[in-house]
């Protein structure tokens, strides 16, 4: 099995390095194909590992080589394929295989075709390290690696200022969180003496709660950054400047879920500190609602989907925080499928619309883009959690978990958010595919994407439809490692009321969205009363949070930096020069002592002698009358 582990891990690296060989050359179709094949190989290996694990096989644990070893610290490159990581591997390799294939078409006309595959495969590699590593340091490698690749891919079109800005924003915000993560790692090391999961986790049981709380909080700060939780969420929406396959792979299916993965991976830690878990769950619920609300009014197709991703991440954290780790993981997986599908569909639309992102400028596209329409509709249904699509199973279990744990506020928020989710998803579908063909005003001639792109997307389509059936086997698989349990609500009636109620609520939201938007005919120009309402503005401007960051963080930072530089030059450096100048100026001022006139020179000599003489006399007198002087001094109280 180790063989497959290595193949799964290193095939993406090989792919990346192979593609990198051609970065400076012109576009080569075969680069994309070979890269896709290599990623597919990784997928196949992962599948073999999955069957191995599913078949009750041993956890595959290898130690490739030493990375760092100093003092008591020992960090190997160790990899583990257990129930959790194999799930993640499947998600990662599957989605990335599809995205790779899709990208061959999507990036067809791009100059940086080869470079794109290099980055994309590098991302897959980093993600594999992240999920497969058997220690926190290895996790951190992947953690930073995906951050790096995300930077490279968001800023892929580096001629666009906004893209590179977004790339930097994403990187820096993640760095803020990474600091928390790093501190968490240090805490783990100094308290348990190791960073290996299988040594550190058992050791947690012996630590006091305050230490564990610290560890939990700091690790979660790391997770917050990568999973774009409030208040570090702004980068995710801005990250949509990257190519759409990137958004599908990184900012929907895989990287952003790394935070969730971390919490799930550290379940043994978080189980010991339920109060932190509750905080995580509350924050998750809040983010779910918060992000969904922003998605309601946004006029950028990709940003809407990004906010929806954010909202779904909130769900996952809510589940994980409540201790329903397996549910979180399951939702993570299901979400990866339908969200990637949604993004790739959006990519098709963008291609068709020549990179136009405002759904109000589209409309009626279902005529020209039938395949895409179907896929996006189904993905949206899955997202909304309509039976029998994937989202239904995963999301509903989260709601059940919240209910069963008696966190009614969280439950309520999540249910309400489910309605919002349905609304904004179908607002998007309605605006894009139904109604009048508003794009004609802008003289755009949309066309369907390459067929192979659609075919590449089809596995996701299928999974988005049927992922629910995996719930049972998945539960069985992770049961042991995640200490999972089914959530049983005592009364069957309650269960049914909840289920049907939610479904009806969601269905109503969909209908409302269709009713409101499917016959939309104009492009809003900011004059309608709704667009001028306070709520709309608040939501449209993302609660003014990016503005606040710009105004109260970025600008002050710039100003303080500039000021510091002035301080450096005018205070620190000037004082050094000042000290040096004291000598020079003193020299300059006193050099006239040497006036060159013999008379003055002689006077200096005599003056020196007289000075010494008077000192001598004073000293002589003092010595002679020392007794008297001492008496006087003591009289004075000296």
């Amino acid at each position, binding site marked *: 099995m180790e063989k497959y582990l290595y193949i799964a891990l290193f095939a993406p690296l090989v792919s990346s390095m192979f593609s990198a060989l051609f970065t400076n050359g012109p576009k080569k179709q075969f680069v994309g194909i070979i890269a896709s094949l290599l990623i597919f190989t990784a997928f196949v290996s992962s599948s073999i590992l999955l069957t191995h694990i599913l078949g009750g096989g041993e956890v595959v644990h290898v130690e490739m080589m030493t990375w760092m070893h*100093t003092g*008591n610290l020992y960090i190997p490159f160790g990899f583990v394929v257990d129930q959790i990581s194999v799930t993640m591997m499947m998600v990662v390799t599957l989605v990335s295989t599809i995205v790779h294939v899709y990208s061959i078409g999507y990036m067809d006309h791009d100059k940086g075709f080869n470079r794109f595959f290099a980055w994309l495969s590098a991302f897959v590699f980093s993600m594999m390290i992240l999920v497969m590593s058997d220690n926190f340091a290895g996790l951190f490698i992947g953690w930073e690696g995906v951050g790096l690749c995300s930077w490279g891919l968001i800023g892929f079109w580096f001629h666009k200022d906004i893209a590179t800005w977004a790339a930097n924003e994403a990187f820096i915000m993640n760095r803020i969180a990474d600091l928390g993560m790093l501190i968490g790692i240090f805490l783990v090391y100094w308290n348990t003496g190791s960073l290996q999961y299988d040594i550190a986790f058992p050791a947690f049981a012996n630590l006091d709660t305050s230490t564990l709380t610290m560890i939990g909080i700091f690790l979660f700060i790391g997770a917050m950054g990568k999973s774009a939780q409030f208040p570090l969420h702004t980068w995710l929406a801005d990250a949509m400047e990257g190519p759409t396959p990137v958004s599908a792979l990184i900012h929907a299916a895989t990287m952003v879920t790394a935070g969730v993965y971390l919490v799930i991976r550290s379940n043994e830690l978080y189980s010991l500190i339920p109060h932190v878990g509750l905080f995580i769950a509350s924050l998750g619920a809040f983010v779910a609602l918060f992000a969904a609300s922003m998605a309601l009014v946004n006029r950028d197709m990709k940003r809407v989907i990004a906010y929806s991703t954010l909202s779904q991440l909130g769900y996952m954290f809510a589940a994980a925080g409540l201790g329903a780790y397996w549910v979180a993981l399951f939702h993570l997986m299901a979400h990866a499928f339908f969200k990637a599908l949604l993004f790739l569909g959006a990519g098709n639309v963008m291609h068709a619309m020549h990179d136009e992102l405002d759904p109000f400028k589209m409309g009626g596209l279902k005529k020209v883009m039938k395949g895409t329409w179907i896929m996006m509709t189904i993905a949206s249904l899955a997202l909304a959690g309509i039976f029998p699509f994937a989202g239904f199973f995963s999301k509903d279990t989260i709601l059940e978990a919240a209910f069963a744990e008696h966190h009614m506020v969280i439950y309520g928020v999540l249910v309400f958010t489910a309605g919002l989710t349905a609304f904004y998803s179908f607002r998007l579908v309605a605006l894009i595919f139904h109604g009048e063909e508003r794009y004609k005003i802008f003289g755009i001639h949309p066309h369907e994407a390459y067929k192979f792109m659609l075919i590449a997307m089809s596995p996701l389509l299928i999974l988005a439809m049927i992922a629910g059936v995996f719930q049972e086997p998945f539960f069985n698989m992770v049961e042991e490692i995640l200490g999972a349990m089914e959530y049983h609500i005592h009364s069957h009636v309650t269960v049914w009321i909840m289920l049907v109620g939610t479904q009806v609520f969601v269905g109503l939201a969909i209908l409302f969205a269709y009713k409101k938007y499917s016959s939309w005919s104009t492009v809003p120009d900011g004059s309608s009363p709704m667009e001028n309402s306070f709520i709309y503005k608040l939501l449209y401007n993302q609660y003014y949070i990016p503005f606040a960051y710009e105004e109260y963080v970025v600008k002050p930072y710039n100003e303080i*930096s500039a000021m510091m530089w002035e301080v450096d030059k005018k205070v*620190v450096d000037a004082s050094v020069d000042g000290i040096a100048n004291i000598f020079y100026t003193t020299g300059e001022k006193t050099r006239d002592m040497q006036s060159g006139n013999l008379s003055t020179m002689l006077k200096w000599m005599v003056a020196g002698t007289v000075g010494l003489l008077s000192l001598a006399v004073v000293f002589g007198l003092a010595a002679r009358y020392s007794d008297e002087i001492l008496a006087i001094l003591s009289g004075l109280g000296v």
Partner: protein
Amino acid sequence: MLDHILSILIFFPALAGVMGFMINKESMRAYGVSVGIIEFALSLWLWFAFDSNVSGMQFMEHLPLIPSFGINYILGVDGISLFIVIMASLFTMLGIASLTDTKNVKNMIITLLFLQMTMVGVFTALDGIVFYVFWELSLVPMLYIIGAWGGPMRIYASVKFFLYTFAGSLVMLVGMLFMAYFYYQATGTWSFAILDWYRLILPESFQLWLFAAFFVGFAIKVPMFPFHTWLPYAHGQAPTIGSVILAAVLLKMGTYAFIRFSLPLFPDASVYFMYPVAVIAIIMIIYTAMVAYAQKDVKQVVAYSSVSHMGVIILGTFALNVEGISGSVFLMIGHGIVSGALFLLVGVIYDRRHTKLMSEFGGLAHVMPKYATIFGIMMMASVGMPLMINFVGEFLSLLGFYSQSHMLTLLAGVAIIVGAIYMLIAYKRMFFGEVTKEENRNLPDVNKRELIALVPLVIITIWLGVYPKPVLEPINNSVESVVQLMHNKATTEDAKMRIPNVSGVVISKTSAKEAH
């Protein structure tokens, strides 16, 4: 030959430098490269012959110099110094190989060879005065390099560099003389041998003063806030090769000296001053990173970033445990490689455009993709990306210091944020966006000569990031013996507790916890 390999390493370049006067101007570059390669090969041989399992000094040489005053020519390397020596010879070789056409190439190469002698000398000397000799002597070639080949303010910059470091090291010299005097009082013989000094246990009050005296010399060299202001000038004005060697090797003298002198000689004082030094280190990290962010000149960005990174090294050193010190030694190598490469990279664009202002660039990634790639790799290494050389050192340094102070490490960790800010923004300004200036439109990409210098550095950056063991292991062994020495010598309660006892089985969890 192995018995005298260190002497050969030191004096071969000097001899070659003297002989260099006889070489024809046109052939000088080839000569310089050959000498550089031989020296580098010798230093690799040193590594090859080095026994990683021995923690003490190896290849020791001992010649009486002024025995009546206790000054002897004693050389030796251990894991701490070995790699810095190799790095010094590596950078001299690469520096000469990538030297772009300047006036007086001959003088430049001869100067570089002399500089190499002093660099190797500093890191192999095991006698206080011999160390000091090379330490001071290294200023002279650098003074010449900055002053003769530098920018418009070169004379100011070089003189400032010289006098500032000179003044600091004179205070250190007084400290050394005191140290020797105390040794004389204790034993009745004069000795400046570091290994002899190691055996001397001083009362804490003496340690404090001596620590302070040594600190002035080292802090200016490192350079630590607020003594750092010579560095931006020196880097800003120096020619590429000067900046490269200054950043890669010369700055390491200060941090190396902390580990070689301050820690083992004054363990109690090190503990006493740990917090103040850490605070200075944190100021270095954050403050200079912010100043770096405010720069308009890309070379100044890299220069200030050096100061910032040196802060992490200092912090790791004053972690006073094996993890931290090993990390800081490793980071010395890492920072040397990375900042050296970054200065080389800045030099590449300076050669083409004769300006270093970032506002003059923009969109270079379109015109010079290879350059942008290498710059990007090095930038990411500098930012501390895992699997690149700097990360190992930074991680270990911060990890080490965490056992001493939670809050301060948290503050110091801001390094990874602010570091990313200035580097990414600088990179964006230079490489991203559209090409706005007409002059930039037809810039040639990196040429072969530049690649000769850059590619090995890229390889090392990634190699040692992925597999630091060959370097980290000897470092670790030597650092363990240093820490053990400190633990044994510590007299105060606090110092005994904060400096771990390495030979003890494992740091038990309880003791680690108590340290919080």
